[in-house]
């Protein structure tokens, strides 16, 4: 007589196991399947295409009714097995139906995890697990329900979101972590994905903790921890799964999170096997299909007494099934000791590829935009292949693997004359080569000026440089363009130009579009990028505090011992007894160890503990003292002399003009620090002729000077112009600052900027061209709307409070005493 096999559950794992079993020996068992669902076996992975309308249910059926008939399998639909009698080897299903077994296979799968929050049982709250859920969603969309909220931005949640959007609903995804699909993606890929979803009209809210679902008789809205409320007609929970292990518990098998199995997929009863999402193996539970199919194969071999290697925890790969989004990740991609990364970014085509290497092996990969090499990388991960031989070309995939690294010069030399080099401007190789030869061009900028090649998006810069080398030989020095840092080959000027040309508005966008070579930049480029974006998109770009040096982050100057110094603004160097008294009181109250007059006509309090900063500022704010920005790449001081107010030689109100300038310019961020001085006569007591911008008042008006230096370099100012009125001088100075804000490279002081672009070009832009001057002035005024708020009072009133206090204090007493 044939042995009896009873299978509980008719999902994908047991389906695969039976296929494998029947292939090897169709007559080994008499098979009975109990299925709680009233359907045949279908491909759950393809539920998303059904939801989005790309597939019909019939197309995702794996085994139709005829398959069971053909193999003489008794399929019992719609009957849930409720108990196992292990002594008599018999299962009982709902309605009293019983079946005897020699071997039992439990594959009860998993249930969606439902958040334990109020309102989770309201009609309109769904999970995303089986065809019933999908049909409910389709009906909701057809009936014109408007707002769908998906809780959970993992694989399933996002697929549900995309499907519901395709069906015309307004979709919002709420995700608790800060990165979508955080278990599969790194920051950059998560960001690209979020952008793509948002561009399709799906709203994504990260760090969103749902606290409550509200509604009267049906879902109406959901509430988040931060108090916000979203309208919702449909709520889909896709926050994870829980193994269905009740049957195992009832039968008193070993059960923890799931039904425990050994590597042969045997439960604690040797005649009972379990596979699929209901099992727990070495502490892990499984939800992806690859390991479930592996289990299915092994259990089939066990049932047939075939030799096998058993199941093991292995590396997993994930792909998102949303049409038009190519996303693939596998292995371990966190950063760490002795791990290296290879990053390829192709901004124009929206491609991001990252390989994580350790000991000459790939241990993880994240691919976005082009996932065609995913399978190849995954194989290299699983096989632990030594990749040192092909490392140089590895990121380009199998097409280049193992080949010798390409000689880029040879490749460029081999290009035909009509090969297009610059796609933006349609410039071919021969046009560039002949321009270099005929017009004696020697630099990239020359080529850009004469041919426009690489002058737009800049992505062909490398090719153009190689053509320069080919044409000019050693006389061309490509190092003439200094890259910003190790994260890019682009210089500061290129980056600034491309931010404007390509409309790049966030650091993440910029790194992707300009193909940054590191995943998150470095301490050199991040502050520069933050400034460039802030200066280019005032009011739009949100300042990234974590990309600023500590001094600008906490609005004080860090000292060698980790304490801080604080310098309040004294407009034009003027102060009063009230301010001085407040400073004296603060010094006493906080036991500030040193007080010093600065070179910029104000007072510096040194040695303040970071925890005291807020209280110090609060006391200073009370008498109207605000931050002097003594730490900023921005306006520092405007030194003045006493001018016509007091001085017998004074020709103009130098103090008043200095105060006017300082009150107008303060708070603005600039590439490097900016120091001004106004002297009331040519005796120049405020030393205006070594400042970034200096004004020397004369009887006939104002001499404006700029580009002085008195630090690392010492240099007298250059003459800019003479004006007869203070208002005209004022407008020119403001325009000059704005011109510098728009052109300067980060950390480049005005004298270096002027040396680079030429004094004459600056004069032409801010003195001679009065229309341009007015435009610069207006742009500065606009930018100031967003920057003139006292950072001290903002922080006293609570901004970034975490910066100033320890997170906790831990007592570690006993061991040391």
């Amino acid at each position: 007589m044939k042995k009896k096999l009873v299978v509980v559950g008719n999902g994908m794992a047991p389906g695969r196991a039976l296929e494998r079993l029947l292939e090897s020996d169709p007559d080994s068992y008499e098979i009975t399947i109990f299925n709680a669902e009233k359907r045949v076996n279908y491909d759950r992975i393809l539920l998303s295409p059904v939801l989005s309308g790309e597939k019909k249910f019939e197309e995702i059926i794996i085994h139709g009714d005829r398959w069971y008939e053909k193999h003489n399998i008794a399929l019992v639909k719609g009957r849930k097995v409720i108990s196992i009698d292990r002594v008599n080897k018999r299962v009982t299903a709902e309605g009293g139906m019983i079946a005897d077994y020699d071997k039992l296979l439990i594959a009860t799968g998993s249930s969606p995890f439902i958040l334990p929050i109020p309102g989770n049982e309201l009609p309109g709250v769904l999970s995303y697990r089986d065809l019933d859920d999908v049909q409910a969603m389709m009906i909701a969309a057809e009936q014109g329900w408007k707002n769908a909220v998906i809780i959970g931005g993992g694989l399933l949640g996002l697929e549900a979101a995309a499907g519901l959007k395709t069906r015309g609903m307004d979709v919002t995804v709420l995700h608790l972590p800060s990165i979508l699909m955080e278990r599969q993606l790194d920051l950059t890929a998560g960001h690209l994905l979020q952008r793509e979803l948002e561009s399709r009209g799906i709203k994504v809210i990260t760090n969103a903790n749902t606290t409550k679902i509200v509604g009267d008789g049906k879902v109406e809205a959901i509430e988040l921890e931060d108090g916000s409320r979203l309208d919702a007609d449909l709520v889909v929970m896709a926050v994870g799964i829980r193994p269905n292990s009740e049957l195992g518990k009832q039968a008193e098998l070993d059960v923890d999170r799931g039904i425990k199995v050994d590597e042969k997929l045997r439960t604690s009863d040797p005649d009972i096997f379990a596979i699929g999402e209901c099992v727990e193996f070495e502490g892990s539970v499984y939800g992806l299909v690859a390991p479930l199919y592996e289990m299915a194969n092994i259990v089939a071999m066990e049932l047939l007494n075939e030799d096998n290697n058993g199941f093991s925890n292995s590396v997993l790969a994930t792909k998102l099934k949303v049409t038009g989004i190519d996303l693939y990740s596998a292995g371990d991609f966190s950063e760490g000791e002795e791990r290296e990364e290879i990053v390829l970014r192709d901004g124009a085509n929206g491609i991001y590829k990252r390989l994580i290497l350790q000991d000459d092996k790939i241990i993880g990969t994240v691919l976005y935009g082009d996932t065609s090499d995913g399978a190849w990388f995954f194989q290299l991960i699983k096989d632990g292949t030594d990749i040192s031989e092909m490392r140089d070309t590895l990121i380009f995939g199998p097409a280049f693997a193992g080949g010798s690294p390409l000689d880029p010069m040879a490749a460029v030399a081999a290009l035909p004359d009509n090969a297009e080099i610059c796609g933006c401007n349609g410039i071919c190789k021969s046009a560039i080569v002949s321009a270099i030869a005929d017009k004696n061009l020697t630099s990239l900028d020359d080529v850009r000026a004469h041919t426009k090649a690489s002058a737009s998006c800049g992505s062909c810069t490398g090719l153009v440089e190689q053509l320069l080398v080919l044409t000019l030989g050693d006389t061309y020095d490509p190092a003439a363009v200094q890259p910003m840092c190790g994260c890019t080959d682009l210089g500061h000027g290129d980056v600034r130009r491309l931010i404007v040309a390509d409309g790049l508005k966030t650091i993440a966008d910029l790194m992707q579009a300009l193909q940054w070579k590191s995943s998150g930049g470095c301490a050199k480029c991040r502050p520069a990028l933050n400034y460039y974006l802030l200066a280019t998109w005032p009011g739009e770009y949100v300042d990234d505090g974590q990309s600023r040096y500590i001094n600008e982050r906490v609005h004080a100057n860090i000292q060698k011992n980790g304490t801080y110094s604080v310098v309040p603004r004294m407009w034009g160097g003027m102060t009063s007894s009230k301010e001085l008294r407040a400073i004296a009181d603060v010094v006493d109250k906080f036991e500030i160890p040193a007080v010093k007059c600065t070179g910029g006509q104000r007072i510096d309090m040194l040695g303040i503990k970071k925890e005291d900063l807020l209280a110090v500022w609060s006391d200073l704010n009370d008498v109207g003292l605000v931050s002097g920005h003594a730490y900023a790449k921005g306006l520092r001081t405007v030194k003045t002399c006493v001018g016509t107010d007091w001085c017998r030689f004074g020709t103009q109100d130098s103090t008043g003009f200095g105060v006017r300038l300082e009150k107008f310019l303060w708070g603005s961020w600039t590439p490097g620090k900016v120091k001004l001085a106004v002297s009331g006569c040519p005796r120049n007591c405020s030393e205006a002729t070594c400042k970034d911008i200096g004004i020397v008042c004369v009887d006939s008006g104002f001499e404006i000077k700029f580009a002085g230096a008195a630090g690392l370099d010492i240099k007298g100012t250059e003459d800019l112009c003479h004006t007869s009125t203070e208002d005209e001088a004022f407008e020119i100075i403001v325009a000059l600052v704005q011109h510098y804000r728009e052109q300067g490279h980060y950390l480049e002081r005005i004298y270096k900027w002027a040396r680079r672009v030429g004094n004459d070009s600056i004069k032409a832009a801010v003195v001679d061209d009065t229309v341009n001057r007015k435009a610069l002035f207006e742009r500065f005024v606009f930018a100031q709307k967003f920057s003139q708020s006292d950072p001290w009072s903002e922080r006293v009133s609570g901004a970034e409070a975490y910066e100033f206090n320890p997170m906790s204090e831990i007592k570690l007493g006993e061991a040391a005493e």
Partner: protein
Amino acid sequence: MTTEIWKDVGALCDVPRQGARIVETSFGRIAVFKTANDDIYAIEDKCPHLGGPLSQGIVHGAHVTCPLHNMVIELKSGRAVAPDEGCVLTLPVRIDERRILLDFSKFGEKAA
């Protein structure tokens, strides 16, 4: 072997991304970092170069640049990135229910 001393030092969300918070102890400060990928690392808040407060530096990748003289420290190992040399103490980190726990056994031992 020293017994592990796990202590809860705060919530995951207390530490800003690409930033750090300080934990005060009787033996000195610990800097707890969160990277852009939300990985958490804890190291002694003291640069091996001249003792700068690493917690105040710019965090990039799994590294921090010291605010005083730009030495770059790898957060996981506590080692300075070549060509610089030096190492700071690292503390084992565990995340439990969105809380950050640190094992202070190495730190206490060193201080004692």
